[in-house]
C-alpha cells in the first residue's frame, strides 16, 4: 500500500504559554517555542505504520514548511517513514489552507500513484481542519474526516468516524484521504535507535518551480483568505472572594450557582 502522510511542524503545544503575538506583523513569534510534529499528524503516522505492517508498501511523509522543517521530517523517518519530501520556497509563505492544499496536490502528482493519504484532523496552531478535505477535493478523491478506526479490504476502505454524540461507519474506495482523530491510536515515542538511519536518508526538497506551480497560485498571493486582525480578547473573568463562615460561604455559593443556572434547582 502506497501511503502519503501530511505532517506539519507546529509550536510545541506543551509550551503554548510561551507563545506571543507580534503586534506589528500579527504573526506568532515562534522563536520561544520550538516546533514539533503536529500531535494529530502523529496519529496519522501511527495509522500509516499500522496499515503498512498489515499490507506492506511504503509511507511517505510530506510537508510544506520552512527549510528547518527538515527536523520534523527526520523524526518522521526515525518513526518509520520510508521517504520524506519537503516543499519549501519563500513564495509559499503566508499560504492559507487552499494555497497549502494546492502545493500538496502538486507534490502528490509528482510523487506518483498512491492509495491513501492520511492527515491529522487539524493542526494545533491554525486548527482549521480544512487542508485535508480541500486536498481531497483538488485530488478528486473521497475523504472521510475525524476517523477513529480504519480497515482496508481489497480496494475498499471502511472507517469509524467521530460524530457529536456518536459514531458513523463510512465506506469508500481507494484512493482516498482520511483525517485522524486523537483517539484513533496511541502514537509511540520517537525511537532514538532509528535516528542515525534517518539522518542518512535523502529528503526530497521541492520549490514552486519544481512543482510547476505559478507563483500567483501559492503563498499569500494565491490565498483567498485575508487576515484582517488577530488579537487576544480581554478576559471577562472576574474573581470574587466570598466572606463568612464555611457554611455561609457554601450556601452563598450554591445560591449563586443556582441563580446562574449552573447547577440544578435554579432558573431555567
Amino acid at each position: 500500500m502506497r501511503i502519503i502522510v501530511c505532517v506539519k511542524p507546529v509550536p510545541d503545544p506543551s509550551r503554548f504559554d510561551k507563545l506571543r503575538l507580534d503586534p506589528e506583523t500579527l504573526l506568532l513569534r515562534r522563536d520561544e517555542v520550538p516546533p514539533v510534529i503536529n500531535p494529530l499528524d502523529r496519529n496519522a503516522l501511527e495509522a500509516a505504520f499500522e496499515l503498512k505492517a498489515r499490507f506492506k508498501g511504503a509511507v511517505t511523509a510530506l510537508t510544506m514548511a520552512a527549510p528547518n522543517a527538515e527536523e520534523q521530517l527526520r523524526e518522521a523517518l526515525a518513526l518509520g517513514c520510508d521517504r520524506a519530501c519537503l516543499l519549501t520556497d519563500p513564495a509559499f509563505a503566508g499560504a492559507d489552507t487552499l494555497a497549502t492544499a494546492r502545493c500538496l496536490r502538486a507534490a502528490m502528482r509528482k510523487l506518483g500513484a498512491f492509495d491513501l493519504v492520511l492527515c491529522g484532523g487539524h493542526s494545533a496552531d491554525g486548527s482549521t481542519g480544512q487542508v485535508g478535505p480541500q486536498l481531497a477535493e483538488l485530488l478528486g478523491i473521497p475523504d472521510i474526516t475525524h476517523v477513529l478506526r480504519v480497515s482496508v479490504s481489497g480496494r475498499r476502505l471502511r472507517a469509524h468516524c467521530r460524530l457529536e454524540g456518536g459514531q458513523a461507519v463510512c465506506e469508500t474506495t481507494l484512493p482516498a484521504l482520511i483525517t485522524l482523530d486523537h483517539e484513533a491510536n496511541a502514537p509511540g515515542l520517537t525511537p532514538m535507535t532509528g535516528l542515525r538511519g534517518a539522518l542518512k536518508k535523502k529528503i526530497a526538497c521541492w520549490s514552486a518551480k519544481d512543482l510547476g506551480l505559478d507563483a500567483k497560485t501559492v503563498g499569500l498571493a494565491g490565498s483567498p483568505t485575508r487576515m484582517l486582525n488577530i488579537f487576544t480578547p480581554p478576559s471577562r473573568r472576574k474573581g470574587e472572594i466570598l466572606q463568612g463562615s464555611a457554611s455561609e460561604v457554601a450556601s452563598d455559593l450554591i445560591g449563586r450557582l443556582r441563580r446562574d443556572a449552573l447547577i440544578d434547582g435554579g432558573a431555567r
Partner: protein
Amino acid sequence: MDFDFPNPVKIVQRTARDFARQVVAPLVPAMEETGKFPKPLIKQMAEVGLLGLVTPRKYGGSELGYLARTVAIEELSKVSAAAGIALQVHHMQAAAILDWGSKAQKEKHLPRLCRGEYLGTCAITEPTGGSDLLGMASTAKPDRGGYVLNGSKCYITNAHLCSSPLVVAKTGDGSRGLSAFIIDKGAPGFSLGREEHKLGLRGANTGEFFFKNCRLRQESLVGDEGEGMKVALKTIGEVGRPGMAAIALGILDASYDEAVKFAKGRTLYNKPISNLQAIQWGVADILTDLETAKLLCYRASWLKDQGRDCATQMTMAKLYATEAGLRASRKALEIHGGCGAMMDYPVQRLFRDAMVCVSAGGTTEVAKIVISRAALA
C-alpha cells in the same frame, strides 16, 4: 558560533522529555516512598533507545553521542534524578567496555546492555573511599591462568540491577597496579550486600559487592593487566562526571520551574510574591546558574563528541552544575517558604537529590584538585 542543537539532539531532547513525563513521572512517588528502582523501567528505557545512546549501532546502540546523552539525562532528571543516575552509570559501563574491552567482550555485553537485559555499572568505590584509587583494598591475585578476587565494593549504583559489573581491583602496586574486570554475578564467591537507604536519589539502587576467593578467568580482564587506573579515570572523568553534571542540570531546570510556578501562584499582601524583589533576585540567581551550567555542560559534551580532550571541562561542568544545583534547589526551597518543608511539594526532593549529586562522581574538593592540576601543569 551556533548555539542551536543539531537536529538529532533536538529530537532526543523531545523524546526524553516525553518519556520522562509519560513513563517516569508516574513512578516517582513510589520510588520516593520505597527507595526501590522500578525494574520494568529498564526495558522501557531500552525500547526508546536511552540505554544505547553512546553505543555504536553495530552493537545495538543509537550512536548519538555525548551531547545527546547529556540532554537526555537532563530531561530524565528534571522528573527523576534517581532515574537519571541509573541511566548515567549504565552508560559508564558501556563506555568502559567500548573503550577498553576486547572484541568478544563488546560483542557479548554491549548488545545486552542496549537491550536492557540488565543495567550496567562500574564498581570502584570501597569503604576506604572512592577518589583514593591507590588506597583500594580489593585484590585480584594471578592464579592458574586467571585471578582470585577478594575484597568489597560499596555505594555502587545499580548494584542489584546489574548482571556483569565492571570491577576494579589491585593486581600489583602503584598506578600500574590496578586492573579492571567484568565479573558475572553468578560467579562463586561473588555476593551482594545490602541496598542503601539514601537521603536523596531515592529510587536509584545503591548497594555493596563482596568477593571471597572469587575466581576470574583471564578473559574477564578489561584492557591489559595494570590498566585499571586508566580505565577508571577515563570512565569517571569523561562519562561519570558529565553524567552527574547532566543530572544536576535537570535539578536546576526543575528548581527554576518550581520556583517560578510557586512565585507566580502564591499571594501575599494581595499580590503574587513574584512582585517582591527578594523573590525576583532569587529567581534571577537560579536562572543565571542554570544558563551558565548549561553552557559548561553542553560545551564539554560537544568536545567529547569531537574527540578532543575534555576531562578538565567535564570536571568543571560537574563541579559547577552540582554546586549550582544545590544553590538553586535551596533557593527554590526558600522561595516556597514553609511549603518547601512539606513532602507534597517536589522542591524538597530536588534539594535532597542535589545534596547527593555534589559528592557522587568526586566531591567538589576533588574536582578542584583535578581542575587546578590542569591549570597549573
